């Protein structure tokens, strides 16, 4: 019967494995960039994700080196040798309390540490600045469109962003579930019809980055990676933005802030409102009955629906109240609707929209 204690070979192997795993740890911490493993990093908080990747990879390197090393070493060192009788038995140990406690407690501590670090970085993702540029992206079969503040119409080619400016990106979908992913920014959120998901980040490197849909969305899903996120310097961005605004100027006279006080609804033009609706509202609202939700409810008969005498804010359905909601936006049980500034609506636009909505019966 062999001894119950590990022999010299075991400790030598352990030492070799320790050296290899330390090398692994050093590699993952000291490598100048994560680029062999992840795409180049293009912004904040992607750098945080990279940090977590380094941490997890280095600990995984330790664990995996030891598991694989021991499997191979044991299989060779403790194999049944030709000199052994065929019915030779191994060392009959059943358990070892200390060892078992150790390999329960150490991974538990590691799990706690990993949880703390992950939560910390998760928290960084949650507290990204909200005061920057607000862009909306809508997933469609099979392309993305983008909306910018104070501009009507949707950008359908590329998403332009200024460098070093925090971005709030509101995502939704027009048909099935898509997912918005820019590998270089390390961030992703699903675009789900009927919901708005938000991601916030700050691009820090000028360049063109691929935008990829990562949720299967139909036959064209494979081709939904052709659009790019163009991160440019502030002047270049502004030039693009103003050009884009100019090209859409015939639709609206954009205003920067939420106006205070009641909006005059006199002289609202229903026809202009209809055009505006298809540009500004139709991503989230259908013209069907209330039940037909996209993000918000269907708006047919919003002012003339006997089964809905009240609007979401609890007030009576009057043109003035509709205008108030358009002006201030809404956040509550039905979801979130951007306010006047975020939607880029002028007072005149609101009057036109209310006039249009009033015609729906």
């Amino acid at each position: 019967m062999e001894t119950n204690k590990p022999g010299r070979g075991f400790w030598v192997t352990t030492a070799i494995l320790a050296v290899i795993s330390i090398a692994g740890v050093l590699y993952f911490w000291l490598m100048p960039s994560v680029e062999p493993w992840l795409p180049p990093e293009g912004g904040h908080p992607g750098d945080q994700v990279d940090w977590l990747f380094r941490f997890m990879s280095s600990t995984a390197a330790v664990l995996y080196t030891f598991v694989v090393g021991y499997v191979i070493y044991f299989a060779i060192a403790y194999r049944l040798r030709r000199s052994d009788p065929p019915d030779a038995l191994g060392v009959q140990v059943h358990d070892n309390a200390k060892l078992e406690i150790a390999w329960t407690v150490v991974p538990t501590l590691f799990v706690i540490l990993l949880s703390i670090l992950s939560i910390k970085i998760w928290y960084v993702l949650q507290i990204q600045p909200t005061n920057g540029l607000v862009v909306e992206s809508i997933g469609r079969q099979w392309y993305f469109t983008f909306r910018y503040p104070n501009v009507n119409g949707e950008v359908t080619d590329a998403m332009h962003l200024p460098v070093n400016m925090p971005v709030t990106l509101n995502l939704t979908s027009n048909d099935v579930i898509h997912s918005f992913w820019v590998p270089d920014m390390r961030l992703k959120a699903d675009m789900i019809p009927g919901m708005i998901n938000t991601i916030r980040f700050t691009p820090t490197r000028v360049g063109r980055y691929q935008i990829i849909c990562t949720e299967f969305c139909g036959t064209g899903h494979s081709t939904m990676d052709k659009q790019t996120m163009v991160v440019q310097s502030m002047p270049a961005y502004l030039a693009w933005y103003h050009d884009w605004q100019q090209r859409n100027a015939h639709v609206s006279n954009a205003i920067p802030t939420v106006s205070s006080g009641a909006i005059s609804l006199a002289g609202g033009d229903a026809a202009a409102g209809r055009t505006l609706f298809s540009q500004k509202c139709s991503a989230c609202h259908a013209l069907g009955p209330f039940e037909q939700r996209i993000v918000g409810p269907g708006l047919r008969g919003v002012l003339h629906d006997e089964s809905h005498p009240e609007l979401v804010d609890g007030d009576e359905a009057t043109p003035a109240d509709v205008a108030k909601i358009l002006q201030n936006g809404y956040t509550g049980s039905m979801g979130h609707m951007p306010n006047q500034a975020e939607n880029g609506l002028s007072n005149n636009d609101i009057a036109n929209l209310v006039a249009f909505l009033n015609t729906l019966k």
Partner: protein
Amino acid sequence: MAVVSIPGGGEVDQLYADTRELRLQGFLLFLVSDVVLFSSFIFAYLYLRNSGQGWPPPGIARPPISLAALNSAILFGSGATMHYALENFKRGNFLRYSSLMLWTILLGILFLCGQGIEYTTLYFQDHVSWAGSGIFGASFFTLTGMHGFHVFCGICYLVVLLLQSVHGVYDKNKYFGLTAGTLYWHFVDVIWVVLFSIFYLI
């Protein structure tokens, strides 16, 4: 009956103490999985209900509570008669057993009739339908319909049990079928307590 002679058979006795135990456990586990089925649909209902459209969704009338309460009382009553039917069978009082079984079946049918009235009123008077009334129609008719189907199956089961017991399939020492029937019927009742609460009371 097929039999195996086994030396030292006392141990075999310990092994399969009683197939009644096995069947009982199997049947209870079946009921557990049925509970999970209902729970999943109830989860779906509560999830949709809280998805921000208000409840009942605008333009939809809840079914009247008076009929539902009466209907519930009928179904719960059938649970009580079923319980005493089994009690009487255990005591050997076959006549009372059969009459209580008949009452149970009758009350069960009454419950289904009540539900039929409720459905027709909803459909013809309030124009609430399964597929055409949004999540209200979907969850209400799916859940109550599934329960109604269970009641229907239960009634068929009870009829079979009654006929079997008339033909003497069960006796005072061997009546697992009746236990299972009672368990099933109680289960149907108890599920209704939950459905009644979540559809009519909250």
